[in-house]
Structures are given as C-alpha cells and as structure tokens.
C-alpha cells in the first residue's frame, strides 16, 4: 500500500466560520496506479491534493504514505518527503523564469543534497526522456507551453519519487498539446510510476484507470475502469 487514508478531515478557520474542506475521507492507492481525482471547485479536491503532496497536513485522521504517518511530521520533515516521494506537475508549470531547462530540472536534486556532476547527469537524462534533449540551455520564455510542461514533468521525475502528482496539467495548454502531455503521463505510468491526476475535465480524467469523484469534502464515487492488458507494461 502506497497511500492509506482513514477518516481524513481538514478544517479551515476563516474568522469565526469553520470550513470543512475535507469531512472524512478514506482512500487507498496502490503502487503503480493511475488515479484521477475529480470534482467541481469547492469539492475539496485541491485540499486533498495538498495533503497527498505533503504541502498540508490533516486536521484530524490518518494519512500514511509508504508506512509513514504524515500528520505528525514537522515542516522540515514534510519538505524532505516532498523532495523524496512527490513529483509535482502544476497547471501553470511553475518553472523558475531565470533558470534554463536543465537547471530547473536539477532543483529537486539540489535540495536532495546530490553533487553537482551527478545532478547534471540525471537532469540531462530526465530531459532526454521527455524529448527535450536539445532544449536544455533554453529558458522557459524560449519554450512553448507544451515544452515547458515537459520540463516540469522531467523535474517531477528526476528524483525518482513514489508519486507523480499532477494538478490540472493540461489546463493552460491547447487540446493537441494537452493530448501530447497526457501521452507522456501514460508512458510514465507504464514505466511503473504511480500517477495521481487532479482535474475537473472528464476528457482528461478518462486517461486514468480509476476515477475518484469528490463532493462537499467527501468521496462521492470511486470507479475503476478495466485496464486493457495491452496497456499494462
């Protein structure tokens, strides 16, 4: 079991008002699953994503990631988990504008404390994997939207995390490029990675093999779509 959540609550206090963003979520995700978390805005899917990504901790309940209880960790321990276990892909790419593609991909390895030459080598590998071997020295503003998102994917993969966590990864891309990116996730999944996709678009979610629908801070439905044997690695 990679992710094990039981009775997860997340309460925000907005002045005197308490908002139950998550109101008792039970969720298990196995290694090498490809899951889409769906739901309208306000459903709690962003909060769930932040907790899965260890950017936030639950108010109540248990979140165990790789046999480790996350709720009780300190800020620095959470940072280490994010660094080692989570590969983020954001809607707005979130690349450092002043750094070239190679350096952007290197960043997680910088915080992992890996030496310079090793970083370079692994960042290069990751960029070649997403087909950007010839764009390493380009800065984000010299790349197309699709290329930027592929740099971001390379960055998410470079430290070999347990989970690739993608938040509306095609939201800022045109349809064709979006399909391209989704194909990348499919490949990543086939290589044995766990992919969690957060989206409100059904078209995007259908690439996944399991759809978790959120509503009002709870899981409304959890549907597995049969995987064609051909797709299995």
């Amino acid at each position: 079991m990679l992710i094990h959540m039981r009775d997860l609550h997340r309460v925000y206090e907005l002045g005197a008002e308490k908002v139950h963003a998550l109101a008792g979520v039970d969720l298990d995700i196995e290694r090498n699953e490809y899951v889409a978390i769906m739901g309208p805005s306000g459903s709690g899917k962003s909060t769930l994503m932040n907790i899965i990504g260890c950017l936030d901790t639950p108010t109540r309940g248990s979140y165990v990631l790789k046999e480790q209880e996350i709720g009780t960790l300190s800020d620095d321990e959470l940072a280490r988990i994010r660094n080692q276990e989570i590969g983020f892909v954001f809607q707005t790419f979130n690349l450092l504008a002043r750094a070239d593609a190679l350096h952007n991909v290197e960043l997680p390895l910088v915080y992992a404390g890996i030496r310079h030459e090793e970083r370079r080598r692994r960042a290069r590998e990751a960029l070649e994997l997403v087909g950007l071997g010839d764009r390493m020295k380009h800065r984000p503003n010299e790349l197309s939207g699709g290329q930027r998102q592929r740099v971001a994917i390379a960055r998410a993969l470079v430290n070999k995390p347990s989970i690739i966590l993608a938040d509306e990864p095609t939201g800022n891309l045109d349809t064709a490029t979006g399909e391209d990116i989704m194909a990348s996730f499919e490949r990543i999944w086939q290589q044995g990675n766990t992919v969690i996709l957060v989206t409100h678009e059904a078209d995007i979610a259908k690439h996944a093999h399991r759809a978790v629908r959120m509503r009002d801070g709870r899981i409304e439905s959890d549907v597995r779509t049969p995987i064609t044997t051909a797709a299995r690695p």
Partner: protein
Amino acid sequence: MNVRESVGIALQALRANKLRSTLTLLGVIIGVASVIAVVSLVQGLNQYVTNQLTASGSNVFSIDKYGIVFDNDTFRERGKRRDLSSEDAAAIARSGAHVEAAVAQLTAGATVRRRSRSLQRVTVRGVEPDYMLVNDLPIGHGRPIGEADERGRAAVCVLGAEVAEQMFQSLDPVGGEVRVGSLKMVVVGVGERKGSAFGASQDLYVLVPFSIFEQMYGRNRSVEINVRSRGQESFNQAQDEARAILRAKRHVRPGEPDDFEIVTPDMVLDLWKNLSGAIFIVIIGVSAISLVVGGIVIMNIMLVSVTERTREIGVRKALGARRRDIRTQFLIEAITLSAVGGLIGLALGGFIALVLGLLTPLPVYVSPEAVALGLVSSSLVGIFFGAYPAVRAARQDPIEALRYE
C-alpha cells in the same frame, strides 16, 4: 544550499537593473569607501610620524619651560617659571653619566637675503657646537659650527639645503655671504637634505652660533635643551639624571613638581596617536551611519525581492526546500549585494586615498587590515540587514506561496 546559485541570482539581479543596483548599494559604497580612505590616510600618517620621530634618534629628548601645552592657563602658568639657560645644558652635559651630549638652542624667524634674493620666515637657530651631533643632523657640505665660532662670536652660519639652493642656486654656498635679519654672515656649511614633511620643507633653516643669536635677539630668553643619551638602554637613566641635575640647580624642593618639562619622541608619538585615534573614531562613526543606512536600503530591496518571488519560494518548497534552504538563499543574496557594494567602496576608497597621496603631500598607506575591515563590515551589514527578509521568505506557507499571483 547551493551557494553558487544564490550568488548567481544576486549578481544577475544586480546586472539586470544597474541604476537601481547603484542606488541600492550607494550607502554601503560610501560607508566602505570612507572607511578605506580614512584608515589608509591615518595609517599612512602614523607610519610617517613614527618614521620622522625615530629618524632624529630615539635616544634624544628635549627639556623646556612649556612642554606640550594645550590650554592658555597652563601656558601662562608655565610662562612664570624660571628660564632655562645654556648653563643648565652645560650642567647636564657635564654631570650626566648617561648623557652623551646636551645643548641649548634658541629659535626665531628671520628673512634671509643674498643680493636681490630673499627668503622670508626662515627658522634661525642659535645652537651650541654639539647641536648637529645631538640632533643627528649630518652636515652635507662644508663644516658645522664649532667651539671657535662660539668663543669668537664669529658671524658664521650653516644653511639648510633648501635655503642654500634658493640663495646660491648652482653656486657653492660655502664661503659665500648671506644676510640673516640685519646681520651679514659667512656660510661655513650646508646641512644634508631632509626633504619635506606634510608639504613643509625641513631644510628651511639657518644655524648660527648661540652667542651670535643672543647678540641678535637679546639674552633674556628661555632655551630649549636637547639631550642625547649614551645609548637606547640608558635613555631613561639620562632623563632621570637630567631631571635631578635641573632640580638641584633650580632648588626645587623634594615633593614639589618639576619646574620644567621633559619631552620625549614617545610622548609626541602618543600625542599623535591620541589625536589620530580621535579622528579615526569620528570618521568610523560617520561611516557606520552610512553603512546602517545602506543596510536599511538593502533590507528594503530584499523585502521587495521576497515579495516578488513569493511564487518561486512556493515552488522551491514544493520541490523539497526546507526553511533553512530558503533562508540561506536569501541571506547569501543579501550578503552578495552588500559585499559587491563593499568591493566597489573598496576600489573607490583606495582610489581616493591614492589620489590624495598623489595630489597632496599627505602620505597614504592602503593596508590589508583596512581592506579586510571594509569587506568584513560590508558583509556584516548584509548578514544583519538580510536576516529579517530571509526569515520572512523562509516562513512562507508553500500552498499560499504557490497560489500567489
């Protein structure tokens, strides 16, 4: 954290906006530049003064009625003391076992003339025969003033090198005649050139026999006595002897203070050091103010930078940066900023010091300590004023930072 990356980011930001950077760093630049310039100047002067004072021989001291006086009351008080005379000098020379020589001298200013040439405000010294020995003032050409001159009240003189040059140009002054004040004198020697101190020539003097001086300016003057001890080791004993001899001769009772003052090169040096130390502290204070102002400007620019890069901070945190990583990054950026200011200030201060050294007679010495002081103080400014923005950056919540537009 990656130091190189942080330094790189800071330098990049500096390059990207040169005007803003210059204004940002101005305080630090001015602070460090003034520290460097002043320290260089004071150290140069210190070295110079020390050299000058030890050049005339560190085993020479002088005695007179006044000593080193700063206020009018003391000056008036000491003026009432009994005059010192050439007999006092002779007594010290005769009875001091550790005294190699002691001479009396009197000083006045006069105009020196030769034919149509004249030189105003030349120092005229009435000196006893051992004067040049005591004060380690070698004769450059000709001979010094001797016993016979003194006894015979000969109208002879030794000229300082500068006076000789002005009066005689390329001619040989020895055997020539000059008019000192109203008295015609034969030149018997020329002192060795000493050069200038603080822009004033040290070769603008005329030495005349003590007796002639008294004839010119009258007898009722208190002399200055110069004493040379037999060696460096006996310097203190020579002082004690001179003091005892003078006290006995002037009937100063035991328990009463001296009615004369002994001045040693060390005392003058101490005086100078106190003075330059005071200048030093004032200027360092002023520089500190501009460093503080410079630091506040750097803090301001770093706070702006932290806000501008909130999203970057969020991304870095999402990728695994700990608080301390973010803190270090921004701190290094602040230090880089202020250190660049420090380097520019260093160059500017060094340049000012060198220009001062070239354009004025002031001696200048840019020491490694001054350079280190400049760099360390500017880096400290970076650490001190960069700390708060760095802590603020590190405290950002990753979710909110990622959402920041």
